[in-house]
């Protein structure tokens, strides 16, 4: 093998890796979906609590959770159909998000039947989990804003115990806006312009 051939082969490998990395830039559509429907979820449940319609709160929570889960599966499926390459890190991150969400669902829907349910802990737990998802998302998306969104969510989780009434809902909405909707829109614009 000549020096020229060697250099050509190294150039091919570098070029392919660079092009693949560029294609793997992520759209933020999943983040936008989680953010918008998370905000809707909080808005609906908080409204029902303010109106004092306690009986429909749990069925509404269950119904909305199921609908959001189905919607997320559809968004992910649609995105995968359009992708030309699928990265390992993205697959792992999706599994990670599911793994973070399941404990929250267990706490929200199963714990009320166990006698150890503490409804005040749910938004705190949710904020801390969102922080974990966002902070690690900063590495997956290579987007430092998400690291800071994660820190913001963790801080929100620490503040929530000292806030009462619908102030908790407002903090959660801010976490979702800052952590999911805004960065999701930025990533989507970058993805379309790549």
């Amino acid at each position: 093998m000549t020096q020229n051939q060697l250099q050509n082969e190294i150039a091919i490998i570098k070029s392919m890796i660079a092009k693949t990395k560029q294609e793997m830039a992520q759209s933020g559509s999943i983040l936008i979906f989680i953010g918008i429907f998370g905000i809707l979820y909080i808005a609906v449940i908080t409204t029902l609590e303010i109106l004092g319609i306690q009986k429909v709160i749990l069925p509404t929570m269950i119904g909305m959770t199921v609908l959001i889960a189905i919607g997320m599966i559809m968004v992910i499926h649609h995105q995968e159909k359009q992708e030309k390459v699928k990265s390992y890190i993205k697959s792992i991150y999706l599994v990670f998000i599911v793994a973070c969400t399941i404990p929250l669902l267990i706490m929200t829907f199963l714990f009320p039947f166990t006698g150890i349910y503490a409804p005040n802990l749910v938004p705190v737990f949710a904020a801390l989990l969102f922080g974990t998802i966002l902070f690690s998302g900063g590495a997956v998306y290579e987007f430092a804003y998400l690291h800071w969104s994660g820190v913001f969510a963790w801080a929100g989780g620490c503040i929530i115990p000292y806030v009462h009434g619908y102030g908790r809902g407002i903090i959660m909405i801010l976490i979702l806006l800052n952590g999911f909707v805004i960065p999701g829109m930025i990533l989507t614009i970058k993805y379309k312009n790549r």
Partner: protein
Amino acid sequence: MNRQEILKLNALIHAPIRLAILSVLISVEHANFTFLKENIGATDGNLSTHLTKLEDAGYIHIKKKFVGKKPQTLCSITESGRNAFMDYLVQMEQIVQLKNGNS
């Protein structure tokens, strides 16, 4: 590994198009035919021929499916392909060292 062995590179990977294919697939779960064609700059027939050779050698796996009414071909590297590619890189590194030693 002696000089003769180092210089005897894997002929299957040595071809530029096949090297480019494996360079893409090594870092992803899968890539579709369109992406490979656009970035490697090969024609449909040429790319298909090289993909078939890699598949016959067990280096890649090809999956064909329909997305709606559109056919889609997805390619992914196998464990065997990954090992062969890594061995190829090691050999290239040794060739560089050999040439630097000779210069």
